């Protein structure tokens, strides 16, 4: 999806002279067309993310529409205070683009993994966090936030993500059923949507109908739109990040608001730096965030619900 977001900006750049693209010296083989399109409004800020973020804030104050681009951990953790004070506190409508969501950069190692970024960004006032699951979601997130006066963080996975479609009318309505099913609801965001669709496919083979609800904008959490998709079936939240991520917090809040009628399990990455090399698929499997693990958790949750109901009757 890295390529896709560059294409979106490139398309806008030709019609909007306010667009400025800042890169922290990254984007080889992706950003070159954008450099051609933007000319001097494409600025390589060097390997200096803190400066890049503050510069972007002042460009926004000067009437530009700045994008700042780097690998997700460098775009968020490295320059957190600049995002906090210069973008959020000053309310500057900068678009931060962090590529490499979750385990995207697998074998490059934990320095390049992004498992806490969404949580940290969601903790900041006013910052919208978009975590699209495929190119269609990205297109719609981008369009929905184009004229939004708030700053936004785009958490972009390397993989394209499985295709399915549904409109996002606004950040508030950005939750939709990627697949229908009444036995269990798999709530996911970003790359985990694809994992959940594969899990649902596996469950269908066993006669279990799993719904997959995708939440591409996790902060602010689209509470009403998400709650409207709950059916009373057990809920599995799946996010390629640590516990406390904005998806699972939002799902839990929605369930609590309904009286916690649904059984619930929260699937997240272990809060630890893996010591042994793994590619993206391996890391996902070890974390229990792959289709097989998601399906197993869903099965167990459904079985647990059945047992509780029997116990309640006795």
């Amino acid at each position, binding site marked *: 999806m890295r390529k896709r977001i560059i294409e979106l900006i490139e398309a806008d750049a030709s019609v909007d002279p306010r667009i400025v693209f800042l890169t922290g010296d990254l984007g080889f083989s992706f950003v070159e067309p954008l450099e051609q399109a933007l000319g001097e409004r494409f600025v390589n800020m060097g390997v*200096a993310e803190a400066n890049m973020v503050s510069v972007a804030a*002042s460009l926004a*104050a000067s009437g*530009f529409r700045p994008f700042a681009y780097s690998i997700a951990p460098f775009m968020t953790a490295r320059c957190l205070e600049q995002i906090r004070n210069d973008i959020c506190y000053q309310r500057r409508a900068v678009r931060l683009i962090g590529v490499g969501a979750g385990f995207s950069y697998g074998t490059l190692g934990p320095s390049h993994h992004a498992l806490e970024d969404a949580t940290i960004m969601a903790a900041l006032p006013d910052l919208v966090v978009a975590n699209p699951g495929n190119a269609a979601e990205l297109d719609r997130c981008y369009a929905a936030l184009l004229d939004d006066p708030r700053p936004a963080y785009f958490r972009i996975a390397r993989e394209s993500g499985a295709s399915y479609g549904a409109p996002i009318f606004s950040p508030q309505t950005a939750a939709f059923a990627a697949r229908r099913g009444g036995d269990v609801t798999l709530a996911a965001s970003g790359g985990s949507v694809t994992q959940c669709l594969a899990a649902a496919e596996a469950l269908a083979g066993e006669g279990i109908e799993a719904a997959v609800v995708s939440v591409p904008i996790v902060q602010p959490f689209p509470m009403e739109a998400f709650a409207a998709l709950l059916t009373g079936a057990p809920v599995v939240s799946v996010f390629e990040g640590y516990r406390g991520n904005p998806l699972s917090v939002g799902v839990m809040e929605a369930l609590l608001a309904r009286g916690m009628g649904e059984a619930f399990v929260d699937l997240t990455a272990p809060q630890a730096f893996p010591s042994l090399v793994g590619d993206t698929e391996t890391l996902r499997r070890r974390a229990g965030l792959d289709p097989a693990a998601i399906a197993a958790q869903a099965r167990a949750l459904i079985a647990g619900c059945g047992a509780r109901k029997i116990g309640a009757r006795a």
Partner: protein
Amino acid sequence: MARAGSARGRKHSPLSQDGAAAAARCAAARRRVISMSYSANSAHLGSSLGVVEILDAVLAVSDLRPATARATERDRVILSKGHAAMAYYAALEQYGLVAPSLLDAYLQNGTPLWGHVGLTEAVPAIDATSGSLGHGLSLATGFSLGHRLRGSDHRVFCILSDGECDEGSIWEAALFAGARKLSSLTAIVDYNHIQSLAPTREVMDLEPFGAKWRSFGFETIELDGHDWAALVAALERPSRGRPRVILAHTVKGKGVARIENTVASHYKPALAADLELA
């Protein structure tokens, strides 16, 4: 790529030619700072008193006035050492850029001016939030880059503290501004040689300070930061096509003899007796 020096060819501000009026403004600002520190029981008295002439000279040279304050297309003034907020507010008051009533009520609950500078609708002349050190030069660099992209010849002034130059982000900004020859940018370091716990030379010696800035591509001027005329002359010197830094040697706590050049002046508020002496 480098634009012709943005300061070149600009008319001198009428205010920048009148030293007697400047002395009066600085004296009034200093009294205001002491009064605010006393009434609000506010720290950072020494940091504020030392930067009075620098702030007045910057405002005198800039086109920031009540009529331009809400404009995008104007000079930008950033106080990166946001803990000297009292001096900043007092200087803005001298130029009619903040309502005196806001300063009378400084730090009272429900008022808009914090103890460190923040953007507020109440004072559109404020260009940047500060308080955490090391952000202002990058913010100024962003404004300067914006001026260049728009083809504007407006200038950007950024007032730094010396201790603040311990922050790595200052040097990220300096490297970028120097490499890109952002000639609209002028940084002024309030070089009082004292940081939060001890003298700068003991904590992390900045010297050779001028050589550092020169090596980053800055035109470097060193002067007495209480010499208003020298400050104005340095600020109005025609551009040499690269960013400028003014290392302004100052006395922390200037004007209140009992606290001058002391670390404690960073923390202790003004006393009633200071009001009478000022």
